[in-house]
């Protein structure tokens, strides 16, 4: 059963036939796209169809609907920060058609029951496809494997497992987990952070932390775990995925591992493509995140790694927090930034406008590869007839100051508030159902005023 199978069960509301005229995936010519009943039925030039709503998207970039392999939707348990509904809306506003939801909820998503609940919440919301991620260990405590098989077999069809927020630190547990998920083509997504080297850590260990008197989170605490895990994955012949890679050294290790033929993939967040630890001066906890913002050299190295394919995808690590968790002294503040609404704009600023990648690369790193790694069918598919119509139309030209008006989730802890970012999502289609129309998020999917 595929993801598309889910949609058929819940019943989509794609009653409108839409004809998008004149967008292009940069480098290819302008193309028309005809969408009907959730599918792309025709592409070409000069298309027409009686009864179709024509949408002029000339000059816009057309991307397959974005897929985020790493988000925190906070429900069940932390609904004050976000719910599956509000997170789905934030995702749609950012051009996403599918998001993977990390299991550090309350209760933790370590059983078939919780992951099926999350799936149902996503279906009821209807803005994006919410694919639950299952915990690797019970309660994410790192001691015993969770029922990975049950989660894989459940209606949620979990294929990605992670203890994100925590590192699977015990090497034996990590080995067993890597081996076990082979049975159902699963992948362990590791949050690489040696807990002993990062006790009480507040920010990147370096020049800035020495001056500010904040306990350091050294790069080696990430790199040493990644080095160990790629060797384990090689030894047992498993897939491995590395979450939110942040240092130059980590990029080097992944590069080395891939050269050896290790089946490893890696993700980077938009904020690690743009922001450095200098932002911690002033102790503004909006910039407190795990893994922390690193040095300028690290930002340049991960950009290069993303451009040359060492890093496979961009994933937001969207981490909503209530105001009191950020409007306080740095040490007391929570780690994390919201990122769904700003992701595409930041990737444009850091990677496309700098000439490091092109729009077809964006399609690869923000849609095709995340879907492939997460084994999510029906997403990241070609924008040709016969495929599901999850499409995003994006205007790269405007430059606007990012503000709380751009945020659609429940929380406002964004590091980009007050900062100029390029671009605007104009249309998002989730399996043919519009969720963003003319730059505005709909109140209900598919229902236009």
């Amino acid at each position, binding site marked *: 059963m595929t993801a598309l199978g889910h949609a058929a069960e819940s019943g989509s509301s794609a009653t409108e036939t839409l004809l998008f005229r004149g967008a292009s995936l940069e480098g290819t010519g302008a193309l028309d796209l005809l969408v009907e009943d959730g599918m792309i039925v025709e592409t070409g030039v000069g298309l027409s169809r009686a009864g179709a709503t024509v949408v002029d998207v000339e000059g816009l970039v057309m991307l397959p609907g974005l897929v985020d392999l790493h988000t925190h939707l906070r429900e069940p348990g932390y609904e004050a920060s976000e719910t599956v509904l509000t997170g789905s809306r934030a995702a749609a506003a950012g051009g996403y058609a599918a998001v993977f939801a990390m299991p550090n909820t309350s209760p933790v998503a370590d059983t078939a029951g919780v992951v099926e609940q999350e799936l149902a919440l996503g279906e009821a919301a209807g803005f994006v496809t919410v694919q639950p991620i299952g915990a690797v260990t019970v309660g994410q405590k790192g001691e015993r494997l969770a029922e990975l098989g049950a989660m894989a077999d459940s209606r949620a069809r979990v294929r990605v497992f992670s203890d994100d927020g925590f590192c699977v630190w015990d090497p034996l547990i990590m080995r067993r987990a890597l081996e076990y998920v082979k049975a159902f083509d699963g992948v362990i997504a590791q949050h690489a952070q040696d807990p002993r080297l990062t006790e009480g850590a*507040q920010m990147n*260990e*370096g*020049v800035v*932390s*020495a*001056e*500010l*008197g*904040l306990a*350091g989170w*050294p790069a080696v605490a990430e790199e040493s775990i990644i080095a160990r895990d790629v060797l384990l994955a090689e030894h047992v012949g498993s897939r491995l995925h590395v979450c939110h890679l942040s240092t130059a050294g980590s990029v080097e290790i992944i590069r080395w591992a891939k050269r050896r033929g290790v089946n490893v993939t890696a993700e980077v967040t938009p904020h690690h493509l743009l922001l450095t630890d200098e932002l911690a001066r*002033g*102790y503004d*906890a909006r910039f407190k995140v795990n893994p922390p913002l690193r040095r300028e050299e690290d930002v340049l190295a991960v950009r290069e790694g993303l451009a040359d394919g060492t890093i496979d995808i961009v994933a937001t690590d969207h981490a909503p927090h209530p105001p*009191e968790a950020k*409007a*306080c*002294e*740095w*040490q*007391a503040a929570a780690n994390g930034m919201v990122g769904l609404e700003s992701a595409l704009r930041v990737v444009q600023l850091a990677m496309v406008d700098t000439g490091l990648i092109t729009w077809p690369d964006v399609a690869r790193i923000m849609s095709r590869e995340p879907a492939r790694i997460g084994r999510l069918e029906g997403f990241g598919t070609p924008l040709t007839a016969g495929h599901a119509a999850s499409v995003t139309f994006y205007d790269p030209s405007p430059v606007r100051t990012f503000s709380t008006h751009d945020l659609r989730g429940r929380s406002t802890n964004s590091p980009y508030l007050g900062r100029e970012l390029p671009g605007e999502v104009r249309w998002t289609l989730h399996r043919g159902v519009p969720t963003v129309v003319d730059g505005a998020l709909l109140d209900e999917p598919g229902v236009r005023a």
Partner: protein
Amino acid sequence: MRHLLDTKTLSRDAALRILDVAEDMADTQQREVKKLPTLRGKTVVNLFFEDSTRTRISFEAAAKRLSADVINFSAKGSSVSKGESLQDTAQTLQAMGADAVVMRHGASGAPRTLATSGWITAGVVNAGDGTHEHPTQALLDAFTIRKRRFGADSRGRDLSGLAVTIVGDILHSRVARSNVWLLHTLGANVTLVAPPTLVPQDVSAWPVRVLYDLDEAVAEAPDALMMLRIQIERMNAAYFPTEREYSRHWGLDATRLAGLAADSIVMHPGPMNRGLEISADAADSSRSTVLDQVANGVSVRMAVLYLLLAGERDDDGSAA
């Protein structure tokens, strides 16, 4: 001066002004009537989230000698220990009409968060934040060095060319950081001595020299040797193996005391671990400025409170 949060951003002129005003304050402390009416009607709140009797008393004495009203707020047993946030605590003080908040907190950056939050209009004095800074300590240390060196001729002078060596747990020391920036600003040359585990991983941007050998540092005849308190609990986090080894390698014992130049001074911010980082002889010798530092602390803090509160309040966030 709107706030005093650190010495990193304190200009030479602003630092000298504080030290020179402190000279005048020190003079008034020699009179029979030590009190001045200058800050009458002003309210100074001592907002101490960490225990510290000596610093709190010093600020309290300073405020009272200027006729200000003092309110002491200690976190223990208060609503803060029950989880009240910094924001709510601050806004309560604002509602009570605090003109200045002297804040000691366990989290680096907390005074800056308070000063830039918009929750209060009072001026903020950092009395020690985590492992970040303790600006009034550095100011009273500089005042002490200057006074011992130049006596009655101190006014207007900086510390150009003087060699100051700081020994101890640099990594966790806000006193060390504040002293590094201020001493450098005043023209002194700073050397740090510590076991390698207690030096921050990257101090390449600090205007200091780092040595691991205290004997080598003593042989260079510094004008001032500043010993920092070592917390014995650091032993349990593997910063050094035993008290004995720490004391043997980095403690100021009789031999090292004798090796100092004739007019070198020995400093310690207190409280001292006698026998650990500093021997009893060193602490009680004529070179020791420990008690001077305490007395000078009141004068320096009087100067800081005066400069913060007496004039018309300007709105820019920097130290004048």
